[in-house]
């Protein structure tokens, strides 16, 4: 049996509802956390296949 808590997701939904609050800038903790996860975020960068790029360029040439 798989048992999970929904506490985190409920929190997200609540935050989503509050997402229109006017806020000026990232505070110190938020900025520090962002800096901390930036390397991990950068590791998620992906590239399209060369084949896809070739198709785009071929489409452009076909219009000449």
């Amino acid at each position: 049996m798989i048992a999970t808590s929904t506490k985190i997701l409920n929190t997200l939904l609540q935050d989503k509802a509050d997402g229109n609050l006017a806020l000026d800038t990232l505070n110190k903790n938020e900025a520090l956390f962002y800096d901390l996860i930036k390397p991990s975020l950068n590791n998620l960068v992906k590239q399209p296949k060369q084949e896809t790029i070739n198709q785009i360029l071929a489409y452009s040439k076909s219009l000449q």
Partner: protein
Amino acid sequence: MNIQSISTDQDLINLYLKGKEEALSELVTRHKSKIYTSIYLLVKDEYLAEDIFQDTFIKVIKTLRAGRYNEEGKFLPWVLRIAHNLVIDYFRKEKRSPTIVNSDGFDIFDVLGIHDESMEEKMIKEQTYADLKSLIHLLPDEQKEVLIMRHYGELSFKEIADLTNVSINTALGRMRYALNNLRKMLVGNKEVTLKM
């Protein structure tokens, strides 16, 4: 002329419109990772991301050739706006929202179900951060969009606000909530358990 040495996107666009196909190739090369990553993290499917990436540039080409491009100096935000709209169109047609489990079959609870508390710090740094992709997918769509456009698209909050039709403060607020929610998920991982 060395196309790669041309510094501005606008110069490349001008060259492309004069018939230099290499200029388009350089524009695609220059921005492909930001655009593709932004699309992929929104749709969570490599094949779909490839299709939308291709459709995005076909729209770009058509618009440029039709002489309807008037976003001088803002090529990347413009392309990301096209990509963003195509993603929205896709989900609208599918009549569904992005799912939590991604196309790799990776389950978020595999990440969050950490049992060995003595290894907690190491796990957070080495595993949970490495699997940040799955945590991003748990964010509400509005927050995820802002995080992706800000980090991968390197758009300003003004550009994000324009793209998503909200105020700058709302875009900023969504970024803050995205960061705070990611932190909650990372710190609060002990609250989610996986019992087999």
